[in-house]
């Protein structure tokens, strides 16, 4: 990491270049994600139409189910909660120049950690719940730190290690839930139910985990933009050479960023266990980490923008089962729509279509293999 070309480490998330701060240049920040989403819906609509269903009807079913009733809204909030947190996890990594593809594995570790802490101890509610949340955060942070330490001290690309750690985590939690942490006298591979004192309560129809996720997102919006620590993350992400020159420990910051990123994903898993599922079962939670990548890039690595991005993804996920029930369309159409959104928001397609503007900043994260 000795010679870093500043042009290589441009995250595309900084303030616009003052030389081109015309009104048009400030528009794309919000226009591009919105147009990308609409374009993805249009193509998704064609896929639905090809299956012989009126796409407008299908989308109406999807959104009415996710947003049209108290039950639906509750489910949308439940689905969005871990997504806000995994989205934030990826954002923190991106800020520090790291592409954390391992939110999935870190989330699983947090989910099973919180489940174990939730059923294994009897504590007063005011102690038990925070204990379980913190334990879940620590499990996720530990899992993220493996990739962070390898990147910081052995220059191993976090992209490969986090992908490998995802697969290891999937196998590990499967083993844990089927042998040492298994609910006794019971055929399914799953942990026992958590104690009541560890459960995240509902405030009316609102899951308290959702509120927690919003608070965390706002906190990171402040931390990453307004504090010295946030400045360290951004500097290491944009120019490690300059960071070192300014006396910032690049290795320490990379390790910390991966630990924080893993901790956020771990919290996502813990909230899912303590608020929704009440126990850990290996089939739960799959796919949440990958949606985190989509959300982070849709939010252009802005911590506060992860909230609307996660709400959008959560809405689609919440409505997709009803879509299948009422129209026979596979719920995976949502995955296709999200993948297309990711494509349009990251590739310069929309910018070229709308503005014929070659100067729109691209999101650049990586610097090759631990260069």
């Amino acid at each position: 990491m000795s010679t870093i070309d500043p042009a290589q480490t441009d995250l595309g998330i900084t303030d616009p270049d003052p030389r081109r701060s015309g009104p048009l240049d400030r528009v794309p920040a919000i226009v591009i994600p919105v147009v990308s989403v609409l374009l993805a819906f249009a193509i998704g609509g064609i896929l639905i139409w090809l299956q012989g269903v009126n796409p407008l009807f299908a989308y109406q079913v999807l959104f009415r189910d996710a947003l049209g009733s108290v039950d639906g809204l509750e489910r949308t909030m439940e689905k969005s909660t871990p997504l806000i947190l995994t989205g934030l996890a990826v954002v923190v990594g991106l800020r520090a120049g790291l592409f954390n593809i391992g939110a999935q594995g870190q989330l699983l570790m947090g989910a099973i950690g919180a489940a174990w802490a939730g059923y294994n101890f009897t504590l007063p509610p005011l102690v038990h719940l925070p204990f379980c949340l913190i334990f879940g955060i620590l499990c996720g942070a530990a899992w993220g730190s493996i990739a962070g330490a390898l990147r910081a001290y052995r220059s191993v690309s976090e992209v490969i290690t986090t992908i490998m750690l995802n697969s290891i985590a999937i196998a590990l939690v499967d083993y844990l839930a089927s042998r040492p942490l298994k609910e006794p006298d019971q055929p399914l591979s799953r942990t026992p139910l958590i104690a009541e004192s560890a459960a995240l309560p509902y405030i009316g129809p609102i899951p308290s985990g959702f509120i927690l996720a919003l608070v965390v997102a706002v906190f990171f919006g402040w931390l990453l933009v307004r504090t010295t620590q946030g400045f360290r993350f951004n500097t290491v992400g944009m120019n490690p050479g300059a960071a070192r020159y300014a006396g910032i420990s690049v290795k320490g910051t990379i390790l910390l960023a991966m630990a924080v990123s893993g901790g956020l994903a771990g919290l996502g898993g813990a909230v899912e266990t303590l608020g929704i599922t009440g126990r850990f079962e290996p089939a739960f939670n799959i796919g949440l980490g990958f949606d985190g990548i989509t959300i982070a890039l849709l939010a252009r690595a802005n911590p506060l923008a992860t909230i609307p991005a996660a709400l959008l993804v959560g809405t689609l996920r919440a409505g997709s089962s009803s879509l299948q029930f009422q129209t026979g369309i596979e719920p995976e159409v949502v995955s296709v729509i999200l993948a297309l959104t990711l494509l349009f928001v990251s590739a310069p397609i929309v910018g070229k279509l709308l503005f014929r503007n070659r100067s729109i900043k691209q999101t650049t994260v990586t610097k090759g293999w631990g260069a």
Partner: protein
Amino acid sequence: MSAKWAYALAILISVTIVIFYVLDPTKTTSVVSFSLRYAVPLILAAMVGIMCERSGVINIGIEGQMLMSAFAGFFGAALTGSLLLGTMIGVGTGMIMGAMLATGAVTWKMDQIIAGTIINILAAGLTSFFYAQGFTLPGITPTLRIPVLADIPLIGPVFFDNGLFTYAAIVSALLLWVLLFKTVWGLRTRSVGEKPSASDTSGIGVQKMRFWNVTIAGGLAGLAGAYLALEAAGTFERGLTAGRGFTALAIMIFGAWNPIGALAAAIFFGLTQGVASQLQTDAVVDIPPQFVNMLPYILTIVLLAIVSGRIKPPAAVGRPYEKD
């Protein structure tokens, strides 16, 4: 890994295999054969990585390229009733996916890892959405027994009595080595990956070279996907590729971006998996199956931690080429 250690390890493993062969010929042959079959998609996918990275483009989307090709190859074969057509559809799909990555990473100069990640997520979404049950392959892929050579003990049944994909994988590794290090195309490819500005000055079209190499490499990913669906699994399931595209990138690194090195590394990976599952079948040790499944991933991380810093990637890898 330095070459000396790699040779020492290779000799040690070979001697061990021979000793086991003397003790139990049938079982040893079956373990080693399993290892080679396990290695086939890894070899092909590692060649994709080598072709792309030697040209200066990171391909993290091999996994998605393989998955789409496996999907297209399987349904192509099931619908046309021809395994050959299915394979060709798979290879064609791989090349289309390769061209997609090339468009993003080369033409549009996107962040190469994001471009690859998009391919992975898109492939997972599309193959899940269009997945349908109730299709079967028109037959099983033919095997080819090479006379005389196949009669050599141990080596014969392992290397010279295989499905066509296995030969294709080995030949592609040898061929890519010759092409990369003994031809003008190879010299140009390597120069584009090491010092594109110098290649540009000497009249090599950097962007064109990168675009076509990434696209053609996609065809090899297509072959790997077709192998998985048409021969290894004999069917298509969601998530069929199971991370092999990423493991292949690690294999590419252990092989020091050299096709022969990667071929050896892939077979080594296959051996660890073969030995682990044999130990499990024989109930020599009580390894939970999940730990056997974890093995290739743990091995990837451990080996990466050992070799990193000692092997240098192509100098310009991951950087879109900007004319000065």
